[in-house]
């Protein structure tokens, strides 16, 4: 930064000299109306000004110059440096001492103010540096966490892609070996069919997984476009149950739908998908022959509450939030130690996305008597006026 001319050392002395001479000239012009005390106060003020602006040495210089001018122009005999009266000697000496002391005090106060200002700036600078460092550190930590999460997600995704691929590749290569006949592989027709069934089922599994990934990506990008229409809750459940029939064949399904439930304004396909996912989970994680209970009831004036309950091992309370995280599986990643088939870790995440897109809520409780799992979700009934307006 460039320093101004006034910050130069010589400028301080020049201004000091000029100010003293200018003030003396002014006082001389109005000389008939001012006495020695007024002159000395005016000159002292000038010393204070110089001291405040330029520090102690220019202030000392101003004090001496002011004392000489005071003596030469305002103390008799005028126009000489001699002093006739003794009291004027005292006045001159008092002026000099006062000017020097005031100048030094003022300069010292200015120095301290400058030091305080420098200190304040230093603290501000350090604070800014510290804040930047914290921001950089938290950014780096966020990046690290994000990389860690990405890596965990990638691991989960690759595991779910690689596992069915392994079954497919092992089946195909066995069938290929048999077809080529070198070395001869005695594969009976049952084994051949089994290999082909595995390829078929694992192909479907890959397809489901990829569809799930696409659905999740849509939900996360806020691109889940709901087609809301008025529909009946029992029809939504019935659609899901029909679809789930092959997987619930070995369970007792019990339906408890409250009478005279109002219709709901939802995307029926999406909500039916939620119900299907929850029935699928209930069937997967509970023993054959056990009961899956599906409930629907009114909750207050504005909500419908639906629930799917199984008689499986249940989900520990500390995992009941985490099971809605994508790729989290309680039976593989959590503390549930019983061996059960594991899903893709996407079903509940998608279900949560769909329910929340309807401004609803989904959560998990223990089943009847503290056993099993009960997944509940609410859906707003919907505003009839909106529909009427739309219909009009």
């Amino acid at each position, binding site marked *: 930064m460039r320093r101004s001319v006034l910050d130069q050392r010589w400028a301080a002395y020049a201004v000091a000299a000029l100010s003293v001479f200018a003030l003396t000239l002014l006082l001389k012009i109005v000389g008939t109306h001012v006495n020695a005390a007024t002159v000395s106060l005016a000159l002292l003020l000038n010393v204070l000004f110089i001291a405040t602006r330029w520090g102690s040495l220019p202030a000392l210089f101003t004090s001496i110059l002011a004392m000489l001018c005071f003596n030469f122009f305002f103390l008799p005999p005028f126009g000489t440096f001699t002093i006739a009266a003794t009291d004027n000697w005292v006045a001159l000496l008092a002026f000099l001492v006062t000017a020097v002391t005031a100048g030094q005090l003022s300069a010292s106060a200015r120095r301290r103010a400058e030091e305080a200002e420098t200190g304040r700036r230093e603290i501000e600078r350090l604070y800014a540096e510290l804040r930047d460092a914290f921001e950089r550190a938290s950014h780096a930590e966020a990046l690290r966490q994000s990389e860690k999460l990405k890596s965990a997600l990638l691991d989960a995704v690759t595991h779910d892609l690689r596992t069915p691929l392994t*079954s497919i590749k092992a089946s195909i290569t066995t069938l290929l070996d048999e077809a080529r006949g070198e070395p001869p592989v005695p*594969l009976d027709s049952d084994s051949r069919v089994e290999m082909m069934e595995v390829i078929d089922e694992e192909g479907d599994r890959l397809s489901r997984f990829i569809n799930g990934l696409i659905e999740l990506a849509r939900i996360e990008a806020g691109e889940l476009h709901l087609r809301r229409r008025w529909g009946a809750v029992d029809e939504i459940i019935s659609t899901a149950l029909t679809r789930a029939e092959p997987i619930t064949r070995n369970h007792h399904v019990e339906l408890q739908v409250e009478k005279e439930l109002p219709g709901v304004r939802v995307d029926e396909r999406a909500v039916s998908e939620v119900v299907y996912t929850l029935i699928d989970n209930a069937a997967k994680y509970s023993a054959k022959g056990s009961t899956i209970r599906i409930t629907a009831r009114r909750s207050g004036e504005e909500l419908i509450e639906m629930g799917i309950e199984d008689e499986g091992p249940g989900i520990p309370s500390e995992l009941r939030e985490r099971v809605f995280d994508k790729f989290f599986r309680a039976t593989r990643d959590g503390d549930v130690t019983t061996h059960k088939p594991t899903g893709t870790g996407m079903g509940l995440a998608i279900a949560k996305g769909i329910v929340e897109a309807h401004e609803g809520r989904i959560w998990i409780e223990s089943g009847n008597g503290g056993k099993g799992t009960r997944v509940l979700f609410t859906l707003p009934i919907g505003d009839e006026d909106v529909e009427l307006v739309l219909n009009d």
Partner: protein
Amino acid sequence: MTDRPKILVVDDEPQLTRVLRTGLKSRGYDVRAAADGLAGFEAFNDWHPDLVITDLAMPNVDGLELCKRLRAVSQVPIIVLSAKGEEKTKVEALDLGADDFITKPFGIDELLARVRASLRRANAPPMNEATQSTLDSGDFHVDLESRAITVREKPIHLTPKEFDLLVYFIKHAGKVLTHRTLLAALWGGNYVEQNEYLRVFVGNLRKKIEPDAATPRYILTEPWIGYRFDPDPVS
């Protein structure tokens, strides 16, 4: 009773166990499957298989724990099934006693080759180091007393450490040896992190025994894991 080699497959993926059971049975093996490490260990105690193939990530007792438990009671060959990206777990499994690993997804022929190699190693007569003065393995002949080695019938000169390393490889031919295992065996437990020692000695050994050190046939690198010695590669 049957004379067919018995293989226990331990995996929590029912589809994969179905395929492996059928694929291995069609090649003349007697196969049983278990859905996790705990069931696998129980099946091992009941059935005494000749080989165990196990996945690593499983509920209850996982593949690592199963390797540990099996090694405590048996020298049965263990092949670990793992996914790419699980190198750390793979090394851990090999250090815990697994003999080999195969990365998913794999073809049945690769698995069968590994099964044959593991069974061959397990059935080979044990080397009695106290009385044995020579080692013959594929292209290699070693006279342990005079510390002389011939490769493809040509004598080669090795430093004492190179000699020890090659003898260790020959004695564990076909088996995946982790960096840690080799360093502990050759340099001692304090040097298990010094992978650079191994790189230097393996590099020197390759220059002396391989027909082309840039494309090794005998000492094969298992990336991130260690080395595998093949004394008789198919040329």
